[in-house]
């Protein structure tokens, strides 16, 4: 009998569990049969191979000669240009060509598994470079080359809030042969390339229900994670990470067979379809909560589906002329995936997880289930599928559309319960309640079938012409988010996100924006969603929720934003009276002095608006910048901004002042600022400027983006960084309290070489 295991003692307390544990502990598996010759045979082969590959070799230099001492490393910008120059391999010493090494890693907030990319401006000896890598603290890693960029991929999560050093430590250029007897000529020791970065703080542990209460939430704001066209679908993993598909970086076409090459008669979707089939390969990536694509998980992925717990993911992958059901985990840094099943036709929906260890999919109109080894799991009764299918989170029940109508199947007994005719948009709560919609000619009705109920009950119904879909339960199984669409393709459609108490209440708007496909994060504090951008395409956003009581400043900000929303919506609706009610006397005078029209009924007319910046002036006043997009005959032609001073007057906020910007024509093209955010961090600030397109990296500098004070004097910026994935420029400053302005000049270009249409200026308020 083995010694007690304190871990097992802590883990198991139930007497019946302890009996099984005791049995397992006392019944160690029998020693396996072993051929003693095998052990010595393998040892001999290994030693022979080790002698061939292991003999100690001095580290090879990966450049031809040693660098000049004067070229010391200087970290200057976010795209960490090490002012360290090396020499191209093979160059004559008399005419060395410098090789620049550029490191791309968030220096102060690196994701815990973020690859470290070192870009070389010239050819190097790749093997020698790889051999020269030293990471401190010790880290297991693997490497790959993307052109001239060396990507160092940690094989485990890096420690949070820790300074890491990645060094390339090349050996001296002239290395004596081990057998040489003469003393080698002294060579200057090369200066190493050193990249230092600090990993992000550990994320707060998810708050699990019932600590989270969806009945007591406030919408705080939203931020864009990915622009339209840069992602396919996105979803939360069971452990609270975001995974998203994105077009393959090398633009390769998908390996998936064309529809014509697959048998017809493929079954319909097993769940609401989400991924576009574009013919272009989509890769699956882990995405940080700030929208950065952190690490690839799998290539050529169709319809990923996250397991309800941990970071396991199932997806479809082309396999010759068929499709494979694959499974991998966000923790598998080696990018390995397991093949579980093969289907003949192109899948039209994601596989669905039945609990944590079984996956269901549809093939030839029938539901099939496999475990995570790919072993078929028999069903108690065949389940024909003609539409959507959604399993309960514990995997015991399945809501499904069958040729005979919608029903809920008990997967253990095989018994089914019919749902009302037309039931669709199934969504299960963590407690086992099923929400679904029934569409009828006059609108939609939301039903909930409680976990212990035999019959569903109606929760709410829509106005005529509204279509409700995409139900998503809050983690505490109390509230539902969903999308309501109205209109028609001919007349134009609109959508709005609604929040409803599942126990029965009138749905109320969520966030006040045309959000779609909303997904609550596992801890309930964020909502992943899509929102149409200027071109009508879906961009990926995340909304932040405040759970519990708002602080005074947060409440004041919500009130101020609500006033601006009322003001702007009224202007777009040509409702002069309501708009005017949001202006104080000073605000009315400010509009008159600036010659700004409140309404724009003619051409161009106000088409839409959105907030660009919200800055705290003091606890009773805010600077809120809004961008007003103008259109002629429904074609958007340009925009301008109004920076509104919104201040408290007795019990309500009113608009006291306005500063307009110059109009910008959309026909000129070029990059545009989308939002400006000021974050006070200790004695300094972080100023985040979000652009709408890929910027030319070499134009993102402190000439193009400047902060000026009230006298137009440029202010010192500690550093400036640019994240290509999120189009985000971050400036770190240490400004004294006061008024400043952010200026973006026309020297800034996008990757197509198009310059900013005209200088952009936005006021900044530093409160200290």
């Amino acid at each position, binding site marked *: 009998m083995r010694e007690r295991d304190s871990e097992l003692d802590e883990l198991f307390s139930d007497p*019946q569990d302890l*009996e*099984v544990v005791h049995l397992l502990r006392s019944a160690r598996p029998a020693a396996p049969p072993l051929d003693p010759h095998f052990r010595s045979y393998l*040892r001999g082969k*290994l030693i022979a191979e080790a002698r061939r590959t292991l003999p100690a070799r001095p580290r090879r230099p990966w450049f031809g000669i040693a660098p000049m001492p004067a070229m010391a490393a200087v970290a200057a910008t976010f795209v960490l240009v090490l002012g360290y120059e090396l020499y191209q391999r093979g160059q004559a010493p008399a005419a060395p060509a410098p090789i620049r090494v550029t490191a791309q890693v968030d220096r102060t907030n690196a994701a815990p598994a973020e690859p470290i990319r070192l870009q070389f401006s010239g050819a190097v000896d790749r093997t020698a470079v790889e051999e020269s890598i030293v990471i401190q603290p*010790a880290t297991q890693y693997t490497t790959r080359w993307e052109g001239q960029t060396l990507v160092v991929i940690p094989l*485990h999560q890096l420690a949070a809030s820790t300074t890491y050093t990645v060094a390339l430590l090349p050996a001296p250029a002239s290395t004596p042969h081990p057998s040489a007897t003469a003393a080698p000529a002294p060579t200057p020791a090369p200066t190493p390339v050193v990249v230092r970065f600090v990993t992000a703080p550990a994320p707060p542990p998810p708050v699990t229900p019932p600590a989270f209460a969806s009945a007591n939430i406030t919408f705080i704001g939203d931020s864009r994670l990915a622009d339209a066209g840069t992602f396919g679908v996105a979803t939360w993993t069971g452990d609270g990470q975001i995974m998203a598909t994105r077009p393959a970086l090398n633009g390769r076409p998908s390996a998936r067979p064309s529809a014509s090459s697959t048998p017809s008669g493929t079954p319909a979707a097993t769940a609401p379809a989400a991924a576009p089939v574009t013919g272009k390969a989509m890769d699956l990536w882990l995405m940080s909560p700030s929208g950065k694509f952190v690490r690839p998980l799998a290539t050529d992925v169709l319809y990923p589906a996250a397991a309800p717990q941990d970071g396991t993911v199932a997806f479809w992958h082309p396999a010759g002329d068929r499709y494979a059901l694959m499974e991998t*985990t966000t923790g598998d*840094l080696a990018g390995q995936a397991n093949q579980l099943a093969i289907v003949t036709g192109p899948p039209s929906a994601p596989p669905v997880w039945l609990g944590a260890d079984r996956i269901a999919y549809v093939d030839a109109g029938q539901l099939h289930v496999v475990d995570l*080894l790919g072993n078929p799991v028999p069903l108690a009764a065949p389940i024909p599928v003609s539409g959507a299918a959604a399993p309960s989170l514990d995997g015991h029940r399945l809501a499904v559309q069958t040729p005979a109508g919608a029903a809920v199947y008990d997967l253990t007994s095989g018994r089914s319960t019919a749902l009302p005719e037309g039931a669709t948009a199934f969504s299960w709560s963590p407690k086992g309640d099923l929400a679904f919609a029934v569409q009828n000619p006059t609108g939609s009705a939301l039903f909930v079938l409680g976990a212990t109920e035999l019959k569903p009950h109606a929760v709410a119904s829509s106005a005529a012409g509204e279509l409700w879909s995409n139900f998503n339960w809050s983690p505490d199984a109390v509230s539902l988010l969903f999308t309501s669409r109205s209109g028609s393709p001919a007349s134009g459609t609109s959508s709005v996100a609604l929040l409803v108490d599942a126990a029965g209440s009138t749905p109320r708007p969520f966030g006040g924006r045309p959000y779609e496909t909303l997904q609550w994060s596992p801890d309930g504090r964020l909502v992943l969603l899509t929102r149409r951008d200027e071109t009508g395409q879906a961009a990926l956003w995340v909304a932040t929720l405040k759970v519990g009581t708002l602080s005074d400043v947060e409440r004041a900000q919500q009130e101020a934003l609500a006033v601006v929303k009322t003001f702007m919506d009224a202007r777009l609706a040509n409702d002069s009276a309501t708009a005017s009610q949001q202006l104080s006397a000073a605000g009315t005078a400010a509009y008159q002095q600036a010659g700004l029209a409140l309404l724009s009924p003619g051409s161009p007319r106000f088409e839409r608006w959105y907030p660009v910046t919200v800055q705290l002036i003091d606890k009773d006043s805010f600077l809120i910048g809004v961008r007003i997009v103008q259109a002629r005959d429904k074609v958007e032609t340009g925009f301008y901004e109004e920076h509104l001073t919104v201040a408290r007057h007795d019990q309500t906020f009113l608009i006291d002042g306005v500063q307009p910007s110059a109009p910008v024509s959309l026909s000129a093209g070029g990059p545009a600022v989308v939002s400006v955010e000021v974050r006070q961090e200790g004695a300094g600030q972080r100023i985040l400027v979000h652009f709408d397109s890929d910027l030319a990296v070499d134009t993102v500098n402190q000439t193009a983006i400047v902060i000026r004070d009230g006298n137009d004097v440029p202010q010192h910026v500690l550093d400036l960084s640019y994240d290509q994935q999120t189009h985000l420029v971050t400036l770190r400053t240490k400004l004294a309290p006061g008024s400043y302005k952010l200026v973006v000049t026309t020297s800034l270009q996008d990757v197509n070489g198009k310059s900013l249409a005209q200088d952009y200026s936005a006021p900044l308020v530093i409160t200290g």
Partner: protein
Amino acid sequence: MSGGNENERDLVDRAQRDPEAFGALYDRYFPQIYRFAYSRLRDQSVAEDVTSEVFFKALKNIKRYTYTGHPFSSWLYQIALNAVADHYRRQRGELELEEAGPVPDGLPAVVDEVVRRDRSRRVWAAIDQLPRQQRAAMVLKFGEDRKIDEIAVIMRKSPGAVKLLLHRGVERLRRDLPALEVEVS
């Protein structure tokens, strides 16, 4: 850090350059890696293939191995886990269970031993029927006496997730092996 771990670290450092040191690592870890492979595969020749694959992969990559505070064996188990998964991917489906192998020395009387072997065979056969991740966690904990933190590293999961797998595994054995409860009690 224990002195044992420091010795292991030195040995691993040397094995990155010295074939004989790699041989010493092999001598130290062969039994547990082979046992682990066999417990997952139940086929001697396949277990030999997988064990061979593990050590050749370890040799190929040992220059990249850096010490992270976890035993070197965790890394080997990680490679073994992947090799086993690769095997199943190639083979599809489980291999048939074989009879339990030779009995280690120094065990109780013959009748007790027969009962013990039967129960052992049945409980480990039941473990073989668990879902893949539960099975790996159970084998590493109950068969290999690994710490939960180590299993987490090997399986690339959080310690909490490993605890959950162990819990589920034990629960499922409780459900699937009601007769065993009687025997134990």
